[in-house]
């Protein structure tokens, strides 16, 4: 069989397999995300009473999440940062995001954070001001697109190996034809 026919068949096979598996992926993986709306809660970070707002709660994974901190008492000129700590059962690393002043009279602070893995997270707010440092913790659960079954993930991920095996076999036949050709 000519090499061009082999190559063409391999590519057609690869394309069909990929399309079929991706269709299965889309059909199986639920696309419904949790309804995310903005939320605000009052926290006591040490001596500071603040309104802590999340642009979306529950926060979706790998999506910018705006966090706003507004002190109840104006004129404090607070500084601080948010630490995102993975909660129980969440396999991820801790990250730190500095809060910066929005410039409003209320003394509001803001930053954009993101959580890279679905599951439990603790957002630790640390504020520093004239009365020293204070911290407070907010627990959130990051939402992710519906999970596909593990077996389907492996089926899709390993599918190119079938083509590789086929390729090695064809390669062997091709070599024999090349060696025969003077």
């Amino acid at each position: 069989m000519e090499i061009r026919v082999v190559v063409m068949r391999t590519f057609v096979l690869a394309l069909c397999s990929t399309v079929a598996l991706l269709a299965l992926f889309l059909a199986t993986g639920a696309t419904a995300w949790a309804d995310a709306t903005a939320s605000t809660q009052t926290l006591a970070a040490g001596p500071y009473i603040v309104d802590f707002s999340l642009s979306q709660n529950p926060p979706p994974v790998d999506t910018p999440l705006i966090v706003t901190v507004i002190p109840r008492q104006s004129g404090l000129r607070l500084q601080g940062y948010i630490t995102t700590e993975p909660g129980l059962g969440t396999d991820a690393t801790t990250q730190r995001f500095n809060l910066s002043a929005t410039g409003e009279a209320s003394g509001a602070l803001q930053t954009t954070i993101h959580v890279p893995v679905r599951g439990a997270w603790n957002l630790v707010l640390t504020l520093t001001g004239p009365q020293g440092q204070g911290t407070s913790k907010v627990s959130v659960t990051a939402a992710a697109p519906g999970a596909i079954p593990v077996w389907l993930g492996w089926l899709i991920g390993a599918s190119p190996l079938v083509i590789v095996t086929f390729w090695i076999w064809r390669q062997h036949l091709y070599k024999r034809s090349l060696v025969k050709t003077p």
Partner: protein
Amino acid sequence: MAHLDVYPVEGASREITSRTTASHTERKIRRVSIWLMLFFLFQGGLGAVWDREWHAYVGRDQFWTPPHTLIYSCVAGVGLLVLALVLLETARYHRGAEGANDASTVRVFGFFHAPLGFMITGFGALLALVSAPLDNYWHELYGIDVAMWAPFHLMGITGGMIGIFGLVYVFAGEAALERKEGNPARRWLGLTALEWGALLVLASMMNFTLTGFLQFPVATIGTLDVSSYLLPLVMSCTFSFVSAQRLTRRPGASLLLVGMLLINTIVIEIFIPWAIRTGVEWQGLTYRASAVPVFSWSYAFLPLVFLIPALVVDGLALRSQRRQREFGRTVPGLALLGALITPAVAILAPLILLAYSSYAPVFLPQPGLEVPPGVWIGSVTVFSLIVLGIGALGAVLGADFGEVWRRNVR
């Protein structure tokens, strides 16, 4: 007496000149592309090791980490380059341009024409690109430490390997064409620039194997864990050395591969720890286990485990050349060669890696538990046979691929 006068025919001369120019254009297009792709390959290789270390020291804080940026810009660069070349080659083929014909291209989907290697590389890049969002999705679901054996890591790695193989095809195909046309090319250490390019790609392939080999699965037999990292190490060694020999027909090709790989790992070890420290400082991140990356002598000089096998392969190749016999003529002979050079890697690698990884000793009794002698003997025997078999298979496959790379001009 008959007198023969030969006069140049003006039209024919013009046609020959035009053909030569067109063929020269064809060669130029392909060769500029492959050297550019080699650059992308080095970039991707560096990104892959950086990514592995970033995972270990920092964790996967987001998709667009600096190493991911390096990897995916390489994949995108190769993909776009191949796409452009396939379209250009297709246009040239349909226009009937000299050099872009059925003898030097393959047809795909009944319309597109390009050299086989470019098609393979393009397929690899596409696969790696498709795996990226799927891999990100998997991480979002299951976290950062899904390690190498996640489905879409496997898909991306397969894509990368296919792409690297495609690049060897392209370099080797051009070199074969050069030989076929009898064009004298300048040689360094007996190799043309294109053959050097093919060897550099093979060395990158070996480096790619080193990138993830310590994360190969650990099999548990009773109270004994057996790390399988020797399998890819041995396979890449026997495959690369035999295929390099078959491709170049030059004794010494294996030693050159070891030298290239050594330079590669040393450069990587100088760059990566510095890059991670700089990245962490710059982005205000924290180390996962408070361990700061530093230059590792074990990893930098790991390619030395391949030195004895390289000398054996080169020695046998030289012997075959002097006796004017083909190197590795028969499949059993090649399998025997593969099995023969395997123990050197299997014994040296754990010794060199002792300071680098806890998986280095291969056979790892579970802490505080006794391993029955039967399990020890059985595990060591079976695993040794598997490693020898993989070494033999690598040599046989290497000969097949090397021979195709030597002869294929499409």
